[in-house]
Structure formats: structure tokens, C-alpha cells
């Protein structure tokens, strides 16, 4: 008899334990979960609904999609330019900035002279208010500013219009800006991953007579690969949501330099000023279309990246 009593007491204890755990979990997770339900799930679902609604009557319509398609396909359509620029910015960030910030992180990790100072200075653009950064840059490249003076010094002559006002050079001037300021965040992530590598590994590789390039590509890269893939995926995920500093550059060629995220921002911001009578429907429709295109692409790339085995250490 005492045996069963013991058993049921043990069971009771276990179920009590289970209950207190459940209560604890409910306390911890309810608010974040509700927040997600409302501000992520509901918002996104209602965004899908908005895409099919007439802005004025709220009736079911495909008019938004027609407008979107028009903006995307007509030769001077805003959306077409926005998509083109978004792809340019994205390509720059993956092809140019990511490898460069990886290499910079390597040299900082290998304690190049002054690495502590470089680490902070290179990270400055990521922490300084973009408004200040852009003002500094635009003043610097002004034909009347220092760049103009430099060009003059070498006997050249800058167009008095400035690089940003001309449609031909505006986008590339901004691309240059994003490269100039874009190393910080990734450098930090890559650097953080590198510092976790056990130095014994590098030491034994050195003893085998491995040089800097081999060390970087065949030892460090595989070891921090999981961080690299995460950075690539996150960049890819943000492709249509990152507006770049377009808003701040303003200027004469704004229509020429627009991006998808900026276009969306401008639609909602413009309407916000006149009291919310704006083109949410068109914006939602554009968002839906871009999402539909990019989801399979990203899932595919993620699968591909995961094929490459990561090294556990």
C-alpha cells in the first residue's frame, strides 16, 4: 500500500511541477505572442486584403494590380525605376561590400597596426545619424566644395550642376556612398565570428606553412560560414525593405534614384500629411507582389547555402 501512495504522490508532484511550468510559460510568452498576432499576422493579412480593395469604396477589385503593372512596365514608370535601383543596390551590397567587409574584418582580426582605431572609425558610418553622413558627403562632392577643388587641382572641371542632379550620375553617386559607408555592420559581425575561432587551429595551419590568402579562404571562411550565410540571408530578406539613404539625398534627380522601399515610404508619408487618404491599397498590392516574387528566391538560396556543410567547433 505505501508503495502506491508514494507513486501517486510522485505523480502529483510531477503534475504540480508541470503546472507551474505551464503557468510560468504563459506569463512569459502571452504578451510577445499577442504582439506578434496583432502587429505581424493581422497587419500582414490585412495588407493582403487591402491589395484587393478599391481605395474609396472598399469593394473587391483588381485595379491596384493593374496600376502596379502599369508602373512596372511603362517606360518611365516609377516602380520600374525603383526595382532597377533596388537591384543595383542589392548587387553592390552582396558582390562588393560583403567580400570587402570580410577582408577588412580579417585584417582587423589579424591585428594590423592601429586595428583598434580602424575598428571604431570604419564603424562610424553605421552609428552616425545618416542625415549627418549624407550632408557631409553631399557637401564634400559639391562642385563648389572640396571635390570640386580637387578636380580643379588636377586640371579638370566639374559640371556645375553637381553629380546628384544629373540623372546619368545620380544613382551611381549614391551607390558609391553606400559602398563608402557600408562596411561597418558586417565587418563587426564577421569580426565577432572570427574572434571565436580557437587560435590553436590557426597556429597549426601556420606551422604547415599556410599563407594569408589560404588562411583566409580555406580556414577562416569555413569556420565562420554560418555567420556568412546568416548575413547573406538577412541582406536578401531586407532587399525590398531597405530604402538606402535615398530620402536624404533628395535633389533634382529623386525620381531617378528611387528604390522600392523609398517609393513605399513616400506613398504612405505623403498620404500621412493630408490625413490618411492615401494610396495604402496600391502600396499593399506592390508589397504583396514583391513578397510573392522574393519568397521562392530566398528559400531557394537558403537551401543552396545550407548545402555547403558548416564546420562545428
Amino acid at each position, binding site marked *: 500500500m505505501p508503495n502506491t501512495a508514494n507513486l501517486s504522490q510522485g505523480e502529483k508532484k510531477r503534475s504540480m511541477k508541470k503546472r507551474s511550468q505551464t503557468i510560468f510559460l504563459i506569463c512569459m510568452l502571452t504578451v*510577445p505572442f499577442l504582439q506578434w498576432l496583432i502587429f505581424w499576422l493581422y497587419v500582414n493579412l490585412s495588407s493582403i486584403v*487591402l491589395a484587393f480593395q478599391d481605395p474609396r469604396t472598399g469593394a473587391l477589385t483588381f485595379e491596384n494590380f493593374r496600376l502596379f503593372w502599369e508602373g512596372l512596365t511603362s517606360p518611365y514608370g516609377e516602380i520600374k525605376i525603383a526595382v532597377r535601383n533596388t537591384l543595383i543596390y542589392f548587387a553592390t551590397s552582396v558582390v562588393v561590400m560583403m567580400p570587402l567587409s570580410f577582408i577588412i574584418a580579417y585584417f582587423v582580426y589579424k591585428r594590423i597596426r592601429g586595428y583598434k582605431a580602424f575598428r571604431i572609425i570604419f564603424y562610424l558610418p553605421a552609428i552616425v545619424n545618416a542625415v549627418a553622413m549624407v*550632408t557631409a558627403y553631399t557637401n*564634400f562632392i559639391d562642385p563648389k566644395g572640396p571635390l570640386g577643388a580637387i578636380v580643379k587641382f588636377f586640371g579638370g572641371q566639374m559640371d556645375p550642376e553637381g553629380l546628384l542632379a544629373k540623372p546619368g550620375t545620380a544613382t551611381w553617386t549614391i551607390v558609391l556612398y553606400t559602398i563608402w559607408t557600408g562596411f561597418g555592420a558586417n565587418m563587426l559581425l564577421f569580426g565577432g565570428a572570427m574572434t571565436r575561432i580557437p587560435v590553436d587551429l590557426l597556429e597549426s595551419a601556420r606551422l604547415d606553412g599556410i599563407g*594569408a590568402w589560404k588562411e583566409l579562404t580555406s580556414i577562416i571562411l569555413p569556420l565562420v560560414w554560418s555567420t556568412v550565410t546568416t548575413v547573406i540571408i538577412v541582406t536578401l530578406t531586407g532587399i525590398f525593405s531597405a530604402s538606402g539613404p535615398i530620402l536624404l539625398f533628395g535633389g533634382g534627380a529623386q525620381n531617378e534614384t528611387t528604390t522600392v522601399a523609398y517609393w513605399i*515610404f513616400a506613398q504612405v508619408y505623403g498620404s500621412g500629411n493630408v490625413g490618411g487618404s492615401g494610396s495604402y491599397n496600391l502600396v499593399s498590392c506592390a508589397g504583396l507582389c514583391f513578397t510573392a516574387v522574393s519568397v521562392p528566391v530566398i528559400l531557394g538560396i537558403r537551401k543552396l547555402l545550407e548545402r555547403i556543410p558548416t564546420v562545428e567547433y
Partner: protein
Amino acid sequence: MANVTVSETSLQQKQTFKKAKENTVLTKRSRGEKALFGIVFTIFVLYGLSLVMPFLYLFVNSFKDGLEYINDLNGGGTLSAPDKWLFGNYLEAFTGMTMIDSMGNEVNLIMMFFNSVWYALVCVFASVAASTLTAYCVSKYKFKLRGFFYGIAIFTMTIPIVSATGAQFKLADTIGIYNTPLYPIIMNFSGFGFNFLVLYGFFSNIPWSYAEAVFIDGGGHGTVFFKIMLPQALPTMLTLGIMSFIGSWNDYQTVLLFLPDFPTLASGIYRIEQSITRGGNYPIYFAGLLISIVPIIVLFSCFSNTIMKNFTVGGLKG
């Protein structure tokens, strides 16, 4: 007692040994590499200068008289030192740089500074708190919905939802948080983003045996979380908090869109820049810009080591 001290000194010795070894391994270079590092060093210096120079330019010109700046601009001498260093420009930036909000009130830089501080703090607190709660539970407890929650986190991170800004705007307007301080609190209390991923990785590495010891002593789940786990997670939370502080401090778009009457330094200075006329007093505007970036630079220099040490993120697999 003696045991503890012995193991502590040996731990210290071990660490200094490890540091010394790191130093030798990471700085040992062949002759060819020395040349390579020399070249890269030169490039780094040039690039670093290019990043610092524009600010020097703003700094020098922020002390000039408005007219002097325009004359210098037309004469191509914007890099020259000011005729007279007008330190008063900074004082005037604080009180004289204003923008008009939708109620017709003038907002000056002091007000914007205040808005920046509370806005950034609120964002930091909400985002770090929420992700700590979710990351801890999902990484440490086996419960039925665990996979579901982890799924949400990975899903929201990797499925690119392109702008639900329109719907967001409508919802904020409907429930009455548009243009109120509630907006950043509620919107940032999100437990499933980048912060989740970092904290999830962190908590997964803390052994659960600590918790079992607490349970044996009769403590509950709350005790484990607040007394054992949170203190260990503080450095990571601090790092995420600083990163999110910097992000919120500089975020002008969200504030422009959803909090138009609470201009922060970032959004307010943007609006001032938009309204500045061709003949406007640029030096004072430059002074305001520099004022807005000083707190961030100070914050970052103080915590740069903590950030570098704790800012790591692993894979997205799960």
C-alpha cells in the same frame, strides 16, 4: 576557500596565457605578409581619413558666420579656417534651430534631444525585454508550442514581407496609437527578430544544471530566470540594447511616419534640412548636426569592447 583562490589564480594564469598565445599567433607574419599588411595599412589610413574628413569639414564650417560660409563656398575656400571662431553657433543651434509641428508649436533642438532620449530608451527596453522572454522560453523549455514559436521566429526573419506599411499605418490610426508615445512601446515589443536569434543562441549555451540546483533548493521557474539566467545574459542584452539604441537614435523614417509631432534629433534635423533655404544659415545647421552625433559616438566608444565581444550570430538552422 584555499581551493577557490588556487583555482582562480590558475584560471587567471590560463587566461593570460591564452591572450599571449593569441597575440603571437595573430601577429606573426612572414616577410611577404609584412609587405601586404603595410599596403593594406596605407589603404586603411586613406579610407579612414575619407570617413573623418567630411566631419572635419562640417566642424570647421560650423564655426563660421552664415555669410562667410556662402562667400567661401562661392570662392572655393570651404576648407579654410573661419575668420572668427563663432562658438555661439552651437548655443544658437540649441535654441534657434526649430521646426513647426502639426499643432503649430515650435520645437527646438533641446526638445528634440529629449525626444531622442526617451524614444531610443523605450525602443531598447521593449525590444530587448520581449526577445529575452521569448528566446529564454523557447531555448530552455520543452513544451508543445515550442516548435511553433521557433518557427515563427525563423519565419519572420527569413520570409521577406515587403512593406505592410500601409496596413500598419491604418491599424495604428484605428487603435489610436498613431502619433503617441505608445506607438514605439507596442511596436517594438516584438519577440521574434534578430535579437531573438542572438539571445536564443546565448541561452542555448547556458547549462540547465544551474536551474536544477535551484529546483532542488525549492526555487521556482521565476527564480531561475531572474536570479540565475538574467544576470548571465546581461552582457549580451546590453550589447543588443546599445545596438538598438543606436538604431533608434538614428531612425528618422519611423518617427517621420508614425510620430510626426515628436521629432527626434534625426527626424527633426531632417525636416529642418528640408526647409532650409538657399541663403539659410548653414553653419548653425552644421553645428546642430554635430550635436546630434556626439552622444552616439561617446556611447559607442565607451562600449565598443563589449559590443565587439558579444556581437555574434550563428546560423539560421533549426
